[in-house]
């Protein structure tokens, strides 16, 4: 350790005096190789997509609350914008009624966009890029050019997804899961270009998106392993870095099979192979053209082999951010840091062997089912450990409810609800009843929406000062928090009730509608008792949308008029607060060397209530494994 640390303390030193010339406009703002700029690029694109995905859903929520009614005000505009495949006119010519295909397309794209173009780019790529190198005291990522390639590859995938809304037939409409044969026969046939159609563009977009994630995750892992500053030993890494480390491995190993599957479905659609097309398909009356012999289940295995680890990709960075913010705002170390690190690795490993719990209804033998039920139950244990550790970290703290802390604290019970409702789903005999109902929708939205999205908000409010040099407005922040908290629950809690009543997901009309005289016209009788919730949930969704305005305003306004931030506004201990604000190209203006663990808050006998990781110990009592001041300061 000692030798190692000194060794590259020196070679850092050697570089410290390298040229710090400022790059020109294009290199600085567009084709930047600076991890901070790439982080910001990922962040803004991702947030924009979050908003877009949300807007798609608000249109769907309107349709669910008022089936067959034209979208008010913007209806006509939407129809001209998205075209006849997605919108139609009412009998008396009012424009802007979502079609069934339109509903399915928006649903599929909402899922895809939120997962692959919203949360992952923001929670993993944006925060990972911006924060991780700073937290480990690195001057940049190991492969800056690959990092840039990753973003632009992602950008191309965004273009594909957006274009797909405007081709004949509209965007992909077979669910974010794109199960063949449905996805195979969708957007096919006369008059539809074999390439320029929703599903094929979806596949192409995904292939680019996956490639981007792979480039990104290689970079993250390499950076964390190679570029830790002297003294930044493994057990001194902030928990957020651990979370990103595991997440990167999940992406690295789980995504390629989906890429393979994507290529195969692409072959099916463009070159007429039948990887996923069984023999003897009869598509509306006629025998389909495929030679057959394929297996629809193969797709499901390859898809879920990614998509289950993916859901942990959605949550782990969130948990990481929450951990950072809780430690900082309770002014005390995390409870059971080591246990948490252990748990997150177990979680990462287990998430590779639970995928078939999404396929309980595909006809599973007793043995296979037993295996996947067991692993699924096992995976809930590390999650429980993580949540419990965070909960106990609150105890004995001196909690200050800054805006980030509000979101971080709310994350816990929200994730709790989402996670707990996962448990019944893990038992496939119970899943017999709950599969594909709104109970599922409720389950995972509690984890990703008031869960991950809250974590993201927390992260934005927490690191915004470091990125922009200005604080976000506190009052607007609190407003944003309380409104979001209320309306999120307003949307998602009734989903459990609807689910228990047997209301299913992906229903174009939400099960039925209320007529003018207040009586119900039901597609499914079972929807009757809970139909009234639809309008309640939709209203909450619209209000949630409005509740984002303070945030968006705050986000843009504070950039120029916010209160100037000091280098370490939250009095945090981790290394990223040890740079100038905002950090220059190359991050640090002094050599960084780390002397202690990440959360040394309220250390007994210390003069202030936080002791930064980089603060040289009063050479009398050296913390174990630290670098002697002599070695660090040249």
């Amino acid at each position: 350790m000692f030798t190692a640390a000194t060794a590259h303390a020196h070679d850092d030193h050697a570089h410290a005096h390298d040229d710090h010339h400022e790059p020109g406009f294009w290199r600085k703002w567009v084709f930047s190789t600076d991890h901070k700029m790439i982080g910001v690029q990922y962040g803004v694109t991702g947030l924009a997509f979050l908003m877009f995905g949300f807007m798609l859903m608000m249109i769907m929520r309107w349709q669910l609350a008022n089936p067959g009614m034209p979208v008010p005000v913007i209806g006509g505009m939407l129809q001209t914008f998205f075209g006849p495949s997605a919108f139609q006119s009412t009998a008396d010519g009012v424009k802007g009624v979502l079609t069934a295909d339109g509903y399915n397309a928006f649903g599929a794209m909402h899922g895809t966009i939120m997962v692959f173009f919203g949360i992952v780019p923001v929670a993993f790529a944006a925060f990972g890029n911006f924060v991780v190198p700073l937290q480990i005291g690195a001057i940049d990522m190991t492969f800056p050019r690959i990092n840039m390639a990753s973003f632009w590859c992602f950008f191309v995938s965004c273009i594909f997804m957006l274009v797909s809304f405007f081709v004949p037939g509209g965007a992909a409409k077979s669910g974010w899961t794109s199960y063949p044969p449905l996805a195979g026969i969708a957007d096919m046939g006369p008059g539809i270009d074999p390439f320029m159609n929703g599903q094929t563009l979806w596949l192409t977009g995904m292939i680019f998106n996956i490639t981007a994630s792979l480039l990104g995750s290689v970079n993250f892992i390499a950076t964390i392993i190679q570029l830790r500053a002297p003294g930044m030993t493994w057990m001194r890494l902030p928990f957020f870095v651990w979370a990103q480390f595991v997440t990167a491995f999940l992406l690295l190993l789980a995504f390629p099979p989906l890429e393979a599957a994507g290529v195969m479905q692409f072959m099916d659609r463009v070159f007429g192979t039948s990887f996923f097309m069984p023999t003897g398909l009869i598509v509306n009356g006629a025998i389909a053209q495929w030679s057959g012999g394929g297996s629809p289940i193969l797709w499901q295995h390859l898809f879920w082999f990614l998509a289950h680890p993916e859901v942990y990709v959605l949550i782990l960075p969130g948990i990481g951010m929450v951990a950072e913010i809780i430690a900082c705002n309770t002014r005390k170390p995390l409870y059971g840091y080591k246990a948490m690190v252990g748990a997150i690795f177990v979680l990462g490993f287990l998430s590779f062997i639970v995928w078939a719990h999404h396929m309980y209804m595909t006809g599973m033998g007793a043995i296979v089912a037993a295996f996947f039920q067991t692993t699924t139950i096992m995976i809930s244990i590390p999650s429980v450990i993580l949540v419990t550790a965070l909960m106990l970290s609150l105890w004995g703290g001196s909690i200050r409810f800054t805006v980030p802390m509000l979101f971080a604290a709310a994350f816990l019970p929200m994730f709790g609800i989402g996670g707990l409702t996962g448990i019944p789903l893990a038992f496939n005999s119970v899943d017999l009843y709950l599969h594909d109902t709104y109970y599922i929708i409720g389950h995972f939205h509690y984890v990703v929406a008031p869960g991950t999205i809250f974590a993201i908000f927390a992260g934005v409010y927490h690191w915004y000062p470091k990125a922009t040099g200005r604080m976000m407005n506190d009052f607007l922040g609190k407003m944003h928090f309380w409104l979001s908290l209320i309306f999120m629950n307003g949307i998602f809690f009734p989903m459990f009730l609807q689910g228990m009543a047997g209301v299913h997901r992906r229903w174009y009309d939400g099960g039925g509608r209320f007529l003018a005289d207040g009586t119900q016209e039901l597609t499914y009788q079972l929807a009757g008792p809970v139909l009234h919730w639809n309008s309640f949930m939709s209203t909450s969704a619209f209000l949630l949308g409005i509740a984002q305005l303070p945030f968006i305003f705050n986000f843009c306004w504070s950039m120029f008029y916010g209160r100037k931030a000091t280098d370490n506004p939250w009095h945090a201990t981790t290394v990223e607060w040890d740079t100038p604000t905002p950090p220059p190209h190359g991050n640090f203006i002094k050599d960084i060397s780390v002397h202690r663990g990440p959360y040394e808050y309220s250390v007994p006998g210390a003069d202030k209530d936080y002791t930064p990781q980089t603060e040289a110990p009063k050479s009398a009592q050296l913390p174990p494994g630290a670098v002697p001041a002599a070695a660090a300061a040249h």
Partner: protein
Amino acid sequence: MFPNLNKAMGIVPNASEHGYAVDHLLEFCHWFMGALFVGWSLYFLYTIWRFHKSRHPKADYHGVQSKASAHLEFSVVLIEAVLLLGFALPLWGKRVNGEQFPPDTEAIRVHAVAEQFAWNFHYPGADGIFGRQSALLVSASNPLGLDATDTAGKDDLISKNELHLVNGKPAIIEITSKDVIHGLQLQNMRMSQDAIPGSRIPMWFRPVRAGEYEIVCSQLCGAGHYAMRAVMKVETQADFDAWQKEQLSLKPAN
């Protein structure tokens, strides 16, 4: 003595033999989840009140000392293990293990064949043999491509979107699809199985309450998915036979 959480959450009435076990397991889960949630929430609310910086200006470096959490986590694991090994696994075994299926002789056998966007329920008729089928013969009038030359098929009947079963008599339903993946979900029977083209997968259950129930398609199958509704009529043997006779009489002679 306890309030029934499933009922409180509006679960649809159960009408099958094994359904009670499913509900029981779900009920137990909900109590377990509820306990954890309430317990933790109370702790949570108390903590953020008690340790607010106004009440607790100086944080305690060491925080929680007790090992209570370890015991809690252990008991969570224990309960989950009981639910899994004690209830979930046996239940599923009973569903899918070949030897657990009732003998064909005393069961009602049906082939459920899905298509965009309807269910064809194919009964073997009196002889108990399903007629030969061929994809090449499929047409609007002959949705399953039954081969007219096969005598076994003579007394078969195909009922669109209407599944008839006999109360108290086990039903073995073999499920497949002609085009895309659909799902045959019988909410009231606590039963569900995807209809996957290219494979025919059996499921069984025993209805124990007569009545008319809804069948939901539980896999996205296209624009008409939301309305791919079918009904299941659980009736007495007499009514069932009457229905079958009537259907046969309606069947165009070939």
